[in-house]
């Protein structure tokens, strides 16, 4: 076992940028600046113009983004769409998209979630049929985070009439038949809905061999980055709340003198530390699971982390508002923006309750498999931090 490698330089510069430079920039300016800092290239392969770093480094950035919060679509673009192109894209597709994404010139986001669907749906109403050498794609995508300002969408459809297998297309903005309805999101960012009506796509837009597991892997990595982002948010909320309680005077003494409030701050701090630990463990567990090609271990670690961290982050934001009193519910005080961001993350990646259920179902599947192998159920791997 080795100690936490020092991401201190990366961490410090990221936090400094979020605190000092980002606030004066508009959305496109922030995206350009993030590209300039190399953040959009961080996990892309070096051969594709990336920096070849891992999830750990991406999570350092995500944590810094959480302190802002900076709500630009780092996860959807970098950890999902670009990662999927890097994994499954043909040479031409990689050359077309990846350097442009890394340099911040183009944004590609996944378009998966449909009306009435959920985050990891295995049947999609959007369908793709071969028509000669081309594909015809029809369907509706309703929740496309970052889709409003995207230059392209990674549209995932079901293949053929039964739709059991996924098929992915890199659809540039302006493709005939694609109707884009942009909308604002609760966290101050943007998203869009997509309506595809018999959209004709050339074979060159299709990502070959895209599997459900590819999509899950990318989503699980983005989920862990969302945990890291939430840790950054909780840290900030804790500091803001501590400052407020120390300075706000009522009944002739600082609020910090009241034990009922002191203990709630202590609980916030505990939640913060535990969330940080669990996120770090999930990063390590995902790396190990990917090396071992163990999708169940990966999913358990990611969903397990989000089940707890997401819940703690939402509670922390609610508590911070309560402890700030009347000022907490104002836009001016800015504690509320972290709650809105948690709502957005829950909508984008699934709420903690949903991930807890996924965790429980996967564990039961492990139990069944262990019993079938004649092993005691408990020997089935709990997704521990250490293997």
């Amino acid at each position, binding site marked *: *076992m*080795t*100690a*936490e*490698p020092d991401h201190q330089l990366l961490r410090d510069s990221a936090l400094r940028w979020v605190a000092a430079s980002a606030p004066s920039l508009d959305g496109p300016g922030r995206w350009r600046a993030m590209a300039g800092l190399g953040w959009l290239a961080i996990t892309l392969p070096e051969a594709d113009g990336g920096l070849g770093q891992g999830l*750990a480094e991406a999570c350092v950035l995500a944590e810094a983004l959480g302190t802002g919060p900076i709500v630009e679509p780092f996860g959807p673009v970098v950890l999902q769409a670009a990662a999927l192109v890097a994994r499954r894209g043909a040479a031409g597709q990689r050359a077309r998209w990846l350097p442009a994404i890394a340099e911040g010139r183009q944004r590609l986001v996944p378009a998966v979630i449909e009306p009435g669907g959920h985050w990891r749906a295995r049947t999609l109403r959007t369908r793709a049929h071969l028509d000669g050498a081309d594909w015809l794609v029809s369907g509706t995508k309703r929740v496309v985070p970052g889709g409003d300002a995207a230059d392209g969408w990674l549209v995932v459809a079901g293949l053929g009439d039964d739709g059991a297998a996924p098929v992915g297309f890199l659809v540039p903005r302006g493709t005939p038949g694609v109707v884009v309805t942009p909308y604002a999101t609760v966290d101050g960012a943007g998203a869009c809905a997509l309506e595809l009506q018999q959209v004709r796509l050339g074979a060159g837009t299709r990502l070959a061999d895209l599997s459900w597991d590819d999509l899950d892997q990318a989503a699980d990595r983005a989920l862990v980055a969302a945990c890291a982002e939430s840790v950054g948010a909780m840290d900030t909320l*804790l500091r803001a709340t*501590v400052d407020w*309680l*120390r300075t706000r005077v009522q009944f002739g003494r600082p609020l*910090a003198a009241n*034990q009922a409030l*002191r*203990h709630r*701050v*202590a*609980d916030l*701090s*505990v939640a913060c*530390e*535990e*969330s*940080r*630990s*669990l996120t*770090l*463990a999930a*990063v*390590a567990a995902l790396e*190990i699971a990917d090396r071992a090609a163990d999708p169940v271990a990966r999913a358990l670690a990611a969903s*397990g*982390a989000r*089940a*707890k961290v997401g819940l703690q982050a939402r509670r922390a934001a609610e508590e911070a508002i309560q402890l700030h009193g009347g000022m907490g519910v104002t836009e001016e005080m800015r504690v509320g923006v972290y709650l809105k961001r948690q709502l957005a993350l829950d909508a984008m990646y699934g709420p903690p309750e949903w991930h*807890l*259920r996924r*965790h*429980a*179902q996967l*564990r*039961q599947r492990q*139990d069944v498999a262990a*019993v079938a192998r004649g092993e*005691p*159920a*408990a*020997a089935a791997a*709990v*997704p*521990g*931090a*250490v*293997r």
Partner: protein
Amino acid sequence: MSLALTDADRGFRDEVRAFLQEHLTPDLVRASRLGTSVFSEPDIAGRWQRALHGRGWVAPAWPVAFGGTGWTLVQRWIFETECARAGAPSLSPLGLRMVGPVLMRFGTPEQQRRYLPPMLAGDDRWCQGYSEPGSGSDLASLATRARRVREADGTESYRVDGTKLWTTHAHHANRMFALVRTDPDAPRRHDGISFVLIDMTEPGISVRPIRSLSGDHEVNQVFFDDVRVPLHDRVGDEGQGWAIARYLLEFERGGAIAGGRLRAVLGSLRAVAVRDGALDDPDLALAFSVAEIDVDAFEATELRVTASLEAGRNPGPVVSSLLKLRWSELEQTISRLGVRLLGPDALAWEQERPLYGHPATVPLDDARRPLVGQYLNARAYTIFGGTSEIQREIIARVLLG
């Protein structure tokens, strides 16, 4: 943070596993798993301590010079985790993890020579004289009095009068470390406290058993009536007791490596649940997931602390309170799962303790017999060693002043 074990770590783990395979007998495991109280019973813990002593593995955290193992923190973590997984009894921390480190830090060479070897061998059994009837969370208000007197033989000693409460295993102990008031007139009450070692076989000591709601007899009230304590059994200076007590409390709260045990206990419960098909109840399945994720988070926190200590860094002032707080809450969460798992069988009550020493009087197997007792006993975890409220206050003081 990379939490994957190195090859050397894996080799060490295999060595520990081989030792456990050879020395941890099934009856020890059974007795340990049937335990309902905080510490394993002295006969069980004693047998296991002698086995470990034979290998030099009793005190992983001690420096080699005092008979420790010289292990890295990571090796200690592996050792504790493997022992927990195998179901080994827990050794009493009162000597090894509490007064032991105090003697190494504050004791004279003579005290170290006299007390540390029998502590390692398990020949001395220690208890802790801290709380009193009027002094719980407000420990510094303690009133047990130690007066300096000139004995008939011309030597100087203390004479101790008063009473100590919640004294775990006082009825098994031949030694006590205690906080006593040597100067009732000190301007600051903390400065009037000294740390002394008391021979439990001295005349004037009586031990009254207290049976806890879990049916266990583990705690006691101890009375002192003019009990002689030689001056050389005071640790540190007169009036330094409070500083020593705080040093000790950090070990009591943060010195354990507990994640492995939590995971092992939860794993055993899950095995029972799967065997019974109890996890077909989706609520129970969710509750197990919540507990498992909580254990993941706790273990990851312990590992972060371990890794940061390894690199020579300070884990921060909040950590020992945080670990005590979450560990105790998790013990309670898991033991509550055990009761849920029993369903209607939670009605049955074993009256005799220890369970391994008595045949079952209720229609439950060994996996189920201790669960209600364990749940009830775990109520004490958020109270002893500083209540959860005190831990929260310690954390809040760091943050809020």
